[in-house]
């Protein structure tokens, strides 16, 4: 049973907004023909959105990680199997926290308590929870061992262990070590505060980001000319839009305070563009220009000097090289230099990696991410192993929106494996769907949806490159209840 006053509060606020438009939520749902939308109107008799086929297949399923991806998988398997035997290993008590809300916490629009969700409130009935950390993987013998020495055997393994934020890879932040988004990150906050840096990638440091941003804005308001930097690292990251979202929100907050003219806002991404999809890249460049943002491509943050308040970047580029007779073209040479920039406010998006104990194990890979066939999410070597969410080696896959598509594919394929030992071609494949609700100001969002075709794939027939208030309502009020009531229940 899920009861959470935060979700209730969101729905009440959405009601108030709809009321201003002259419609109640109930009426809105009726107008939309959503009789079955029980979960959205607060009923406990939520109907399964996509009714998974019941299966009597048997097997011992072990899930590593009880975050959004792992717990949703556990819930859907429980809904589907008539005799489920499911164990989830998850040491973090706040593992079900709503990470997409960290951006809003960082801009002072939500409180940390608004996104804290407890693991133990989301363990599906009948699922065993092991509150330990999985540290050893023996896929040849189908066993996993925890930090407390508990050895667990399985028939099928689902790896949904998330990723680690590698702050330690940045010189000057070594003491911060590696962190997960949820849970206690006081030490990280202390290290970041000691150098005057911010990062919304953990709940704790998102809260600290708002305190730093308030100081930054006050300084600009006092008449001082200030400089804010925003970074994007050279690894795949969760929520690829967040490094920009926090910049857009800082801009909004500065405008509110009437202090925007005193602040210089500069984006430093490692890559050579704003977004992997051309249409969204172009839209973002226009949005940046309209807001008088500055940006420098191909800059990767490598060091922070807290004493002098400077950030050092590796600036890299290619230059025309020698004629290459094999290529039948001129090749390119890599060039790089170090650039040091002063800051008054810096938002750091840390490099990210798979946890070492998994990435370096037999189920990992040279880059750590779990290698899976991206369409089926089945491990490339071990057919009884699946991976999804942040830890899976899936292009563009590290968002809640991706996980929302992936967990259904994993459940279908896992059950097929249990039933017949193979995945039929008729099973639905994951096509790389991702959604990035790119907050462009307080009150507007560009809903960037796309898949591996690298073309916009909007779910409604509205120009997807436009910033809209309606998508702000979706981001601010609807996505969290949809996640909490729908996805974590294994239904939507």
């Amino acid at each position, binding site marked *: 049973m899920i009861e959470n006053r935060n979700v209730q509060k969101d729905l009440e606020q959405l009601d108030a907004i709809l009321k201003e438009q002259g419609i109640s939520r109930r009426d809105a749902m009726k107008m939309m023909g959503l009789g079955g939308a029980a979960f959205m109107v607060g009923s406990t008799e939520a109907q399964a959105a996509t009714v998974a086929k019941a299966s009597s297949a048997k097997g011992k399923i072990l899930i590593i990680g009880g975050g959004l991806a792992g717990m949703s998988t556990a819930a859907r398997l429980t809904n589907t199997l008539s005799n489920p035997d499911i164990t989830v290993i998850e040491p973090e008590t706040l593992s079900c926290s709503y990470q997409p809300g960290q951006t809003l916490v960082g801009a002072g629009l939500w409180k940390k308590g608004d996104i804290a969700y407890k693991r133990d409130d989301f363990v599906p009935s009948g699922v065993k929870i092991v509150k330990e950390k999985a540290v050893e993987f023996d896929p040849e013998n189908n066993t996993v061992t925890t930090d407390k020495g508990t050895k667990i055997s399985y028939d099928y393994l689902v790896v949904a262990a998330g990723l680690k934020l590698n702050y330690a890879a940045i010189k000057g932040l070594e003491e911060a070590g590696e962190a997960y988004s949820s849970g206690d990150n006081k030490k990280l906050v202390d290290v970041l505060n000691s150098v005057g840096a911010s990062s919304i990638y953990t709940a704790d440091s998102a809260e600290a980001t708002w305190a730093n941003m308030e100081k930054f804005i006050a300084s600009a308001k006092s008449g001082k000319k200030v400089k804010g930097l925003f970074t994007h690292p*050279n690894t795949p990251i969760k929520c690829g839009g967040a490094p920009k979202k926090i910049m857009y929100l800082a801009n909004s907050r500065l405008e509110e305070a009437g202090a925007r003219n005193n602040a210089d806002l500069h984006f430093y991404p490692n890559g050579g563009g704003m977004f*992997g999809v051309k249409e969204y890249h172009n839209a973002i460049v226009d949005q940046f220009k309209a807001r008088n943002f500055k940006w420098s491509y191909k800059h990767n943050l490598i060091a922070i000097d807290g004493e002098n308040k400077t950030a050092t970047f590796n600036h890299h580029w290619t230059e025309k090289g020698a004629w290459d007779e094999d290529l039948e073209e001129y090749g390119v040479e890599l060039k790089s230099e170090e650039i040091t920039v002063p800051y008054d406010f810096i938002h750091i998006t840390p490099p990210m990696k798979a946890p070492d104990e998994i990435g370096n194990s037999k189920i990992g890979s040279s880059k750590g991410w779990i290698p899976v066939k991206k369409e089926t999410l089945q491990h490339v*070597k071990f057919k009884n192993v699946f991976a999804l969410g942040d830890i899976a080696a899936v292009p563009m896959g590290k968002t809640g929106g991706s996980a929302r598509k992936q967990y259904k594919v994993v459940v279908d394929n896992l059950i097929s494996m249990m039933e017949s030992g193979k995945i039929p071609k008729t099973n639905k494949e994951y096509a790389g769907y991702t959604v990035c609700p790119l907050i462009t100001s307080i009150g507007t969002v560009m809903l960037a949806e796309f898949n591996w*075709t690298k073309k916009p794939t909007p779910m409604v027939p509205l120009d997807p490159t436009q910033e809209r208030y309606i998508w702000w309502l979706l981001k601010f009020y609807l996505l969290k209840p949809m996640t909490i009531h729908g996805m974590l229940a294994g239904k939507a």
Partner: protein
Amino acid sequence: MINKTITSIALSAVAIFALTGCGEKNAKVEAKTYKYTTVQVYEKSCIKCHGKYGEGNPDKKTPALNDRTAGEMAQDLYDVKNGGTGIGGGGTDHEIMEHNMQKLVDQGYDYDINSMAEFLSYLIKNK
């Protein structure tokens, strides 16, 4: 400020999508036709620098490809062809090959990523 109709249309679509998951109609990556088969692409082009069995060429500083699984290979090929595997401004791990790949695609040496990864894996195993 906002148009009521648009609000309800969009909210409706969002909710229907969320509830039924019908927004994605078994979306497959569009079928694409290529000038050469995967094997032809390898034998006409890749082989020159990456070798007969993906062993690489130290003289040209071209990396070996025989040190990774088909799954890892597919990831790397995706990165090379798309300038990265992330969403935002992360960039690629293969800056030189990103440039070269673009030139090769322009010359007609385009290919399906999964097919090439599997072919390479076959080559390495059957050396």
